[in-house]
C-alpha cells in the first residue's frame, strides 16, 4: 500500500512534491485505469500519490483581457460550458470519453500524461497555449510545444506541478477540429486534427495546423505554415502538394490495435488538404 497525500493548498502540495517522489493525481481517469488490478482490489500505484484535483488554485477558469486561463484541474465539462472556450477546444473536450468521464478528467492530466493521442494537445497547440509550471523555488512559463519530449515524456521536473494553461483568445475566420476514432463516444483517437485560418482580402493572412496521434508528440510546423501565409487564396491548391509532401515527413505514425500507420498518414494529409482548400462557410 502506498502513501497518499491530500493537501489543502497549492503551497502545501508543492512542499510535498519537493520532498517526496510522488505521482500527481488530478482527475484519475487515466491513472485509475493504468494501475487497475481488478474487482475488489485497490489500484496498484507504485509510488506515493499526491491528490491535487481538490485544490482551489488549480480549478479556476476565467477570461481576462482577451486571455483564457484554465487551471490544470478544471474538469473537461467545465471547459465545455465556459462561454469563452474556443470552439476547437470545446469540440475536443466533448469527444473525450463521455459525460461522466468529462466530469472527472482534466487538461492538466491530459497534458502531463503526454500520450501522443491526448485529445486536448492539438487544439492547445494551435492556440499557442503556454503552461505554468510551479515549484517551491518559483514558476516558469513554457510553450506547450516545448513541453513534450516523447510519448509519456515531458520536461516537468519531479518537484514541479503544472498549475495552469493559458492562451490569447484567437480571431480567425475558419477553424477546424476533427477526431477520427472508431465510434463517437469513448473512443481513443486514431488521428486528431485542429487548425485555424485567417483569410483577408483574398490572401491567407495566417494559418495554424496541429495533428495528434501521428507522431511521438503533437505535430505542428511553423515553417510549413509560413510557406502558406501571405499567399493568394487562388494559389493554395497549386502550392499544396509540395506542402503535403513536407508534412508527410513530419507524420511518423505507428501501427497499433487502434489503427495502422498507412491509414493514419493518409487521413492526416487529407484532413490538412480538406481544411486548407475549404471554402469559408
Amino acid at each position, binding site marked *: 500500500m502506498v502513501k497518499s497525500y491530500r493537501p489543502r493548498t497549492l503551497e502545501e502540495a508543492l512542499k510535498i512534491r519537493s520532498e517526496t517522489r510522488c505521482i500527481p493525481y488530478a482527475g484519475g481517469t487515466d491513472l485509475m485505469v493504468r494501475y487497475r488490478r481488478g474487482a475488489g482490489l485497490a489500484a496498484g500505484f507504485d509510488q506515493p500519490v499526491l491528490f491535487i484535483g481538490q485544490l482551489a488554485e488549480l480549478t479556476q477558469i476565467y477570461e481576462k483581457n482577451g486571455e483564457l486561463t484554465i487551471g490544470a484541474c478544471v474538469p473537461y465539462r467545465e471547459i465545455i460550458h465556459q462561454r469563452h472556450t474556443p470552439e476547437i477546444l470545446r469540440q475536443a473536450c466533448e469527444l473525450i470519453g463521455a459525460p461522466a468521464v468529462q*466530469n472527472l478528467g482534466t487538461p492538466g492530466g491530459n497534458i502531463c500524461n503526454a500520450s501522443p493521442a491526448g485529445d486536448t494537445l492539438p487544439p492547445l497547440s494551435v492556440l499557442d497555449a503556454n503552461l505554468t509550471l510551479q515549484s517551491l523555488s518559483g514558476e516558469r512559463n513554457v510553450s506547450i510545444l516545448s513541453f513534450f519530449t516523447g510519448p509519456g515524456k515531458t520536461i516537468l521536473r519531479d518537484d514541479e506541478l503544472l498549475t495552469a494553461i493559458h492562451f490569447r483568445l484567437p480571431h480567425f475566420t475558419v477553424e477546424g477540429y476533427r477526431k477520427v476514432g472508431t465510434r463517437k463516444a469513448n473512443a481513443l483517437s486514431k488521428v486528431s486534427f485542429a487548425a485555424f485560418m485567417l483569410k483577408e482580402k483574398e490572401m491567407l493572412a495566417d494559418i495554424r495546423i496541429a495533428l495528434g496521434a501521428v507522431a511521438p508528440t503533437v505535430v505542428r510546423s511553423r515553417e510549413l505554415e509560413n510557406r502558406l501565409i501571405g499567399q493568394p487564396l487562388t494559389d493554395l491548391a497549386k502550392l499544396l502538394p509540395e506542402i503535403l509532401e513536407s508534412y508527410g515527413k513530419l507524420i511518423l505514425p505507428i501501427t497499433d490495435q487502434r489503427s495502422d500507420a498507412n491509414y493514419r498518414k493518409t487521413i492526416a494529409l487529407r484532413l490538412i488538404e480538406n481544411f486548407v482548400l475549404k471554402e469559408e462557410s
Partner: protein
Amino acid sequence: MSQIIQFTLNGTPVSLESDPMRRLLDVLRDDFSETGVKEGCGEGECGACSVFLNGKLVNSCLVALGSIEGMNVETIVHFKNTPAYRVIEQAFSDAGAVQCGFCTPGMVLAAYALLKNNPHPGENDIREAISGNLCRCTGYNMIVDGIRLAAKRGEGKW
C-alpha cells in the same frame, strides 16, 4: 497505509479507515453494501458504476477513495426515493427500457443528469447523455424512448 477518510454518503456523514487508493466502486459495494452500483468494465467505459459526486455524474471505478474526502456521494439507492426517480422508473418501464437490468442504475442516473440541466432534450442530446453507458440488451432505442417519455411527463420534477 490506511487513512481515515470522511465523506457524505446518501446524506449521512461516514468515516472509514481504509486504503485511499481503493476504488469508490469497491468501497460502496463491499463496505456499504451499495450493490445498485455495478461493475461492468472497470475502466470508465460502460457507466454501470455511475454515482453522483458533488451532484456530478461520475464513474465510481475511476475514483480513488482518497480523492473524495469531504465530498457528497449519492447512489441509485438514495436517488430512488425522489419524485424524479419515480418519473424515470415508470417511463423506463412503459418504454421497455429495462431488460436484464444491469445497466439500468447507470442509465437512470445519466437520464437524470441530462434532464436536470435540459428538461426538453432532443434525440441527439439524449444519445449524447447516455453515450458513456453500455447496454447489451435493448439496442438503446427503448432507453432513448424511455428518457423522452420521462421528459414529457416530468415537467417541473427535475
